[in-house]
């Protein structure tokens, strides 16, 4: 059997970390400096000596580290086109070359440290490559560790999204209009099919924001069927870039939360405000809904939010942020994520 056929769709192929991601850069800097501290500790002979040694190591480490990160940042598009092993070799090579180059350019700066002129540059280049190799192994292990989590989270998302309450009430509402308004019932069933198709798709790929908004509107049309006048929604999408990509089902679960916890318990209903816009390199999603004073806290609320938070973290690491504000009679969610453009 050819090997390609037994590769499970769910396992990720080895890939270099994204050197343009803030989370990756932060981890590299922290771990490299952590290793430097460890080396200083091993070599030190007294407490003050630790600081001195860290300083000595930093004199070389920081320039190498920063110029390497810059180079990898610039070369990222090129690296993604190569195979994993080619890319890894290129990373190691660049670490070695940059270390030697900095020794060469630094000249005077590093001379006092080098008793054996030819040994130290080569030793440090090898150490640097070893450290880089360890970091690559770390990132590869991390990607593997997170990939089942991604699937688990997606499954959990599925359960949180298809609230049985929504499913059965919607079916009931469709039955309620079936005899009186068959045309409207047809549309409602079509909307439900679209919604469930999306919820059950197994792809975690980013989707065009217009598609996400259209889906959210279909969902709202279903809720409108049940709640009628009680549910009002204000969309603010004037400043939304049409070519943006977002994680699938980011908007709809938030709206479902707002309807379930905000609108349904209010006898006169209320208005949900939803705002999508871009600010610089960030996409923003803001949602505001009224809520009943002294509402009893349902666990469902936190589950849905924790789920979105987890999916954002898996997709964007530290570059996505999430704030929730619970007022006496309102609820506000603000999500910020990197602005990713659709490429044609």
């Amino acid at each position: 059997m050819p090997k390609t056929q037994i590769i499970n769709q769910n396992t990720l192929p080895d890939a270099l970390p994204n050197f343009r991601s803030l989370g990756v850069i932060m981890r590299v800097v922290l771990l490299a400096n952590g290793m430097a501290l460890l080396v200083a500790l091993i070599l030190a002979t007294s407490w003050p000596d630790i600081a001195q040694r860290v300083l000595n190591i930093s004199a070389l480490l920081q320039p190498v580290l920063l110029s390497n990160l810059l180079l990898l940042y610039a070369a990222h598009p090129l690296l993604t086109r190569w195979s994993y092993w080619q890319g890894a070799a290129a990373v190691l090579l660049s670490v070695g070359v940059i270390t030697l180059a900095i020794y060469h350019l630094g000249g005077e700066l590093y001379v006092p440290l080098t008793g054996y002129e030819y040994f130290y540059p080569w030793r440090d280049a090898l150490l640097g490559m070893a450290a880089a190799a360890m970091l690559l192994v770390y990132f590869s292990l991390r990607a593997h560790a997170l990939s089942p989590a991604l699937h688990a989270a997606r499954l959990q998302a599925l359960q949180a999204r298809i609230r049985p309450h929504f499913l059965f009430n919607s079916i009931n509402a469709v039955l309620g209009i079936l005899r009186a308004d068959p045309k409207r019932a047809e549309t409602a069933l079509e909307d439900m099919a679209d919604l469930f198709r999306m919820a059950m798709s197994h792809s975690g790929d980013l989707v065009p924001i217009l598609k996400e908004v259209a889906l959210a509107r279909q969902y709202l049309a279903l809720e409108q069927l049940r709640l009628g006048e009680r549910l009002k929604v204000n969309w603010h999408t004037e400043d939304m870039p049409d070519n943006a990509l977002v994680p699938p089902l980011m908007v709809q679960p938030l709206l479902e939360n707002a309807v379930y916890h905000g609108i349904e318990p209010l006898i006169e209903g209320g208005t949900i405000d939803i705002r999508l816009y871009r600010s610089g390199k960030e996409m923003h999603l803001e949602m505001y809904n009224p809520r009943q004073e002294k509402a009893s806290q349902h666990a469902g609320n936190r589950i849905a939010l924790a789920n979105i938070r987890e999916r954002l973290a898996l997709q964007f690491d530290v570059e996505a942020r999430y704030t929730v504000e619970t007022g006496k009679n309102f609820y506000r969610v603000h999500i910020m994520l990197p602005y990713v453009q659709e490429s044609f």
Partner: protein
Amino acid sequence: MSIVELPLTVFVVDDELPARNRIKELLIDCAAQLPLEIVGEAGSGHEALEKLSTVHADVVLADIRMPQMDGIELAQHLNKLPQPPVIIFTTAFDAYAIKAFELHAIDYLLKPIRLGRLFDALSRARSAIPLRSEELQELTPEPRKNLSIHERGKIHLIPIDDVLYLRAELKYVTVRTAKREYLIEEPLSMLEKEFALRFVRIHRNCLVAKNEIEGFKKVTDEEGGEAHWTVKLKGLDETLPISRRQQFIVKEIG
């Protein structure tokens, strides 16, 4: 000679219009075999209580999850009517309530409702025994939002947030709001359990609303007896005595 049975009168309560329409359609389908009459419908618990004080229904079909007043609270208030209706609960999904219904063998209908199940439930309704209030209380973890009294053919709702104190007197419990007093026939111990979040016991026969306490005062009897604490509530002139056993609450709250 046979007795002509009057048609079963049915009332529908659900906050969602399509859901009410669906039930009414099914009821009309049932009517072919089971004489029945739809005597009204309501979109909320309050509306239902209003309408049912003038119209009698043998059976009330009540949704559980409704804003302001849920179906279970509605049932508790309807129980105060001179001829309480048989209540059949409807729900799309409510894990807690369904578990409770199964436990107490109470009839309920799952939405979307099937014609056959509705027919069975209605057929049983005539011989059904109305549920007791204590039984209903056990169906939900939530306390009622209102107390209710039956007065001159109408059900009065007293929002629990308006109640300042509850005091047991012989057969009745006095319910005191800022405006007036009402008498209800519920045991004080049950009320204490249900509304533990709002009230604190200050005496064997008295519960006061924690948030309405203005202050405490120590008084001495005119006969020169032992000094004891009293509590003063916001908006009321009278003070209420605190029993010796409950004196610790002065420290806890004051």
